[in-house]
């Protein structure tokens, strides 16, 4: 090593190359003065660059040891592969799936691949000859005269088009170019059928019974305990997937808990029904806290005070949840007095 070589390994920064030693730089310069082979690759003699001294390539005992190291890796890989098959046959999947079976199969296959890879790496590092190759790279730019010629050709073509003098051509071209995006915009109409008035209505009708969404049974007065809630759908339209605006939450308060007069009037004997579709982004809400009467939307934490006509007390929702006016039919079942009086769910362009 020459005197001007760095004494200590310089602090490495990711992506920054170590500076060449003076000797290596000289060797590299000498390389490019030599003739290269077809793809521009020069072989660099090992002694001209700082290649670490590798005992395995000089000492036959080290060589033998390295060979066994590589072989040991391959043997581990082979044993793991066999172990995989044994584990697959031996472990009862019904008892151990998700646990022992996964650990055994995954672990053994990982070991097999890892040992195989480690073997190859050791082989390449310790047993293959350590030559260094240099490949010449050319700069990527065109000669100046070529650039000038291209520029001249382009400008000449532009001049010959005569856009300055041919006004009719210029204007018709501008018009055509301006109208070109219109067909693409018109195609947006094919994104789906227009909603028409469907955003303004739900499946609730006058006399629709409030049906439990899961049991599909109508709910009678007294079915809910004080502090109870139920998710209800209009009778005959029980599938929430097909009636995404209709899900409604029925809440029973203790007497005197309802603060809003309108809310109490639209409900029936401490029972009230509100849309379950958040007025912010349309998530179904039913995180109901029976002591605080908060209804919390899980999507963006809008919080509604259900004792105060679903007033928004926190979060991004802009409006109260719409209330469904309910009463009780002759048999004691809850029925809706009609559809919601305002559009349910998130805002839309023409909502008003």
């Amino acid at each position, binding site marked *: 090593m020459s005197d001007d070589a760095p004494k200590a390994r310089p602090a*490495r920064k*990711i*992506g920054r190359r170590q500076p060449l030693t003076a000797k290596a730089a000289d060797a590299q310069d000498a390389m490019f003065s030599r003739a290269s082979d077809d793809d521009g690759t020069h072989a660099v003699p090992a002694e001209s660059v700082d290649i670490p001294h590798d005992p395995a390539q000089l000492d036959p005992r080290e060589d033998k040891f390295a060979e066994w190291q590589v072989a040991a890796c391959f043997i581990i890989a082979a044993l793991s592969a066999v172990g995989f098959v044994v584990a697959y046959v031996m472990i009862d999947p019904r008892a151990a*799936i*998700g*646990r022992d079976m*996964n*650990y055994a199969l995954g672990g053994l296959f990982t070991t097999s691949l890892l040992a195989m890879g480690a073997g190859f790496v050791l082989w390449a590092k310790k047993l293959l000859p350590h030559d260094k190759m240099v490949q010449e790279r050319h700069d990527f730019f065109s000669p100046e005269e070529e650039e000038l010629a291209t520029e001249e050709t382009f400008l000449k073509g532009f001049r010959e088009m005569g856009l300055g003098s041919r006004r009719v051509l210029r204007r018709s071209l501008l018009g055509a170019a301006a109208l070109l995006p219109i067909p693409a915009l018109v195609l947006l109409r094919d994104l789906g059928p227009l909603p028409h008035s469907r955003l303004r209505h739900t499946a609730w009708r006058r006399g629709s019974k409030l049906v*439990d*969404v*899961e*049991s599909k049974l109508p*709910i*009678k007065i*007294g*079915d*809910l*305990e*004080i*502090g*109870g*809630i*139920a*998710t209800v759908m209009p009778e005959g339209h029980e599938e929430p997937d097909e009636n995404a605006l209709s899900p409604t939450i029925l809440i029973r308060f203790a007497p005197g808990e309802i603060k809003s007069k309108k809310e109490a009037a639209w409900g029936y004997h401490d029972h009230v029904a509100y849309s379950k579709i958040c007025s912010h982004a349309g998530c179904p*809400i*039913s*995180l*109901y*806290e*029976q*002591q*605080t009467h*908060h209804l*919390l939307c*899980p999507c963006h*934490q809008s*919080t509604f005070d259900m004792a105060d006509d679903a007033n928004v007390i*926190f979060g991004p929702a802009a409006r109260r949840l719409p209330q469904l006016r309910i009463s009780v039919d002759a048999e004691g079942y809850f029925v809706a007095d009609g559809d919601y009086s305002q559009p349910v769910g998130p805002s839309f362009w023409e909502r008003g």
Partner: protein
Amino acid sequence: MSPSTFARRLVSRRRQLASAAVVAVALGLLGMLYAAVAPRGSAATSADPAVDEGRKLFQSLSCASCHGLNGEGGNRAPSLIGVGAAAVDFQMGTGRMPLQAHGPEAPRKRPVADEADILKVAAYVASLGSGPAIPQFDNADWQRADTAFGGALFRTNCAQCHNFAGSGGALTYGKYAPSLSDATPKQIYEAMITGPENMPVFGDKQITPDQKLAIINYVRTIKTQADPGGVGLGRVGPVTETVVGWLIGIGVLVVVTIWIGARA
């Protein structure tokens, strides 16, 4: 003193004596009447010895310091009249009561009293006013319930707060819905019928006892289910799996790549 004056005085004294006697008799009668119909208060005894022992425990376990000497409630705690035995068994059985500290949510902890004592306190509180009784069922009852339907009911009624794998979740202002992994079948049932803290009440007319057992079977089934891959990651599905995949999996790859690049 003339005889007439003497006679008047005698009559007057007699009258005074008579009225005093009437007052004394009346007071005595009133006292006896009160003793006969008055509420017995803390000195009262009842037919069920468990209720009496429960009352003593209610005071010695310091329930009474917040809920009042007769469970009538106070500034710091609600009335226990009419909450029923199930509520007591749930609150004390999960260690939430007696309360350790006032806060948004009472955490689950080791029960202070053993099961026999809890049942005595429950019997006492149940004697204050009628409420939901401790549900009676054995393991075979919920084990043969319909798991799939229980899952559907759970996802409709419970999953919004407790998460669809029963892992629990956050509510407003520091409150939270607890994980169900430690809850016993009886505690799950009691929670549904009593609605502890901010949980809504799910009465037997809304979710029938059979449906409740199905929900319990679902909760217990997912609790004992194995996690393919070994780690459940909160069982909240593809979100955590993707986060772990990106942060840890790809993160490790990036670090390894940088390391290889730095060595080259």
